[in-house]
């Protein structure tokens, strides 16, 4: 029996709404194929399948909200017998919630045959039969206003439907009622998801924090010079250096990279860096860039651009949501913010934070000068590592940023 189940797309997910099937009974599917669109509290996610086979039946209908673990479809091997279960659902262990109680509004069983829970919020009457790109806020607003996304024209990236598009589409309908509670409702479900995850983190994970000021003048100067030789479309942001350095540093200190599940730490051999991306309409997501330690800066930049664009358009993939082995949050674009002490995304065990590089007085030997200084922070899980190893990690990070040409 091979079942395709509602995946856990992060510790903050207890249930998801199947929005659209990308497959039909009789279709052949291959490992890594996108087979469904699922709406979570953090927006729309393209869900991949991690085994080959032939679709036998679609168990759950579009528009239905079901708990994580629910069988969505069944597969066979195409010769009458059903496909063997996949050895693993994803390239790395999915960060399923730890078996401790959570304040989840919907139970999140990890087993099959979970009951189907009707969605408390109905989809628009015509559930999309074709692919609809829309930002998370736009989808939520469409539900509030009863706008059919399938017939709404998108003006965002890749023709994604934006919040403004939805409100424009609904304008005649909402013109008569004077007051529509727009602001209080917006992004509420995402805020609830973030609240549940962060509260769980603070309740379960004994955080410790370290920070290190690092002279990044060599890295900033190197990047400025390097970018001069690039075309505008190939320019690399400083954030790409930070991601690469972080990925290399955790290879030296593997206690920062993996998951704490079932009462023990399970290190990850792969380094999939979750990137905290703020959404302009409110909230944030932290999808993964896979295998950052083995990517060039140009490749990291391309992945980062793609990821940010899709995060804001509401088209992230399930493996990006479930795979991060640690997370980086970068507040370097916020003026005046020099440091951030983050909250670890369970079941990950570390979160690395970067503030804005700023010009500061800096002593070098007996000389005092002005250098570009970056405060790097580490929030780490004391069940897995201690301050000494955290310090070794930050030291490695500083050393790697001091040799940017080697990144």
């Amino acid at each position: 029996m091979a079942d395709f189940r509602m995946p856990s797309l992060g510790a903050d997910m207890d249930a998801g709404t199947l929005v659209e099937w990308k497959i039909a009974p009789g279709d052949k599917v291959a490992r890594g194929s996108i087979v469904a669109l699922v709406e979570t509290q953090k927006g729309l996610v393209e869900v991949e399948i991690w085994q080959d086979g032939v679709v036998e039946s679609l168990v759950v209908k579009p528009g239905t909200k079901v708990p994580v673990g629910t069988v969505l479809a069944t597969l066979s091997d195409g010769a009458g017998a059903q496909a063997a279960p996949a050895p693993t659902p994803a390239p790395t262990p999915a960060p399923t919630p730890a078996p401790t109680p959570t304040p989840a509004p919907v139970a999140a069983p990890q087993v099959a045959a979970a009951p189907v829970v009707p969605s408390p919020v109905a989809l628009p009457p015509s559930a999309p039969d074709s692919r609809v790109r829309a930002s998370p806020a736009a989808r939520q607003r469409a539900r509030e206003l009863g706008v059919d996304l399938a017939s709404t024209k998108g003006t965002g990236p890749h023709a994604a439907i934006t919040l403004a598009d939805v409100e424009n589409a609904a304008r005649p309908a909402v013109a008569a009622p004077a007051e529509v509670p727009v602001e209080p409702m917006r992004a509420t479900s995402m805020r609830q998801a973030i609240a549940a995850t962060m509260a769980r983190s603070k309740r379960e994970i004994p955080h410790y924090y370290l920070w290190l000021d690092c002279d990044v003048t060599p890295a900033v100067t190197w990047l400025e010079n390097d970018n001069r030789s690039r075309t505008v479309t190939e320019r690399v942001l400083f954030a790409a250096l930070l991601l690469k350095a972080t990925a290399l540093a955790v290879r030296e200190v593997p206690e920062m990279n993996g998951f704490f599940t079932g009462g023990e730490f399970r290190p990850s051999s792969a380094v999939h860096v979750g990137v905290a991306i703020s959404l302009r309409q409110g909230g944030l997501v932290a999808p993964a860039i896979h295998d950052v330690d083995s990517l060039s800066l140009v490749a990291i930049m391309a992945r980062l651009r793609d990821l940010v664009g899709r995060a804001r358009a509401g088209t992230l993939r399930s493996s990006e949501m479930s795979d991060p082995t640690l997370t980086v949050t970068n507040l370097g674009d916020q003026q005046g913010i020099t440091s951030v002490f983050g909250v670890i995304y369970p079941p990950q065990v570390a979160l690395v934070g970067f503030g804005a590089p700023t010009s500061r007085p800096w002593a070098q030997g007996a000389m005092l000068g002005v250098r570009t200084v970056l405060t790097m922070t580490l929030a780490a899980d004391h069940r897995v590592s201690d301050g000494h190893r955290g310090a070794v990690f930050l030291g490695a990070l500083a050393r790697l940023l001091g040799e940017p040409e080697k990144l």
Partner: protein
Amino acid sequence: MTRQTLREAIVAALKSVAPEADASSIDDDERLRDALDLDSMDFLNFVIALHRDLHVDIPEIDYPKMQTLASAVDYLEGKLPSSP
């Protein structure tokens, strides 16, 4: 290209990178990054959009000259061929 059409091209570029924000109502002297909540990736995409639409190359060192709509119009006016 007149200053008005240049301004419209800049607003169009901003809308393309930040469709959720209201770039039409931004004041000439507001900081673009603050008014539209642009991060460094958005700003780079903005520069790429201007490069694509206006065929101008904007080096990183000139980013500070593009902080507001007014200063961006001034800067790009100097980069583009004069109108007949």
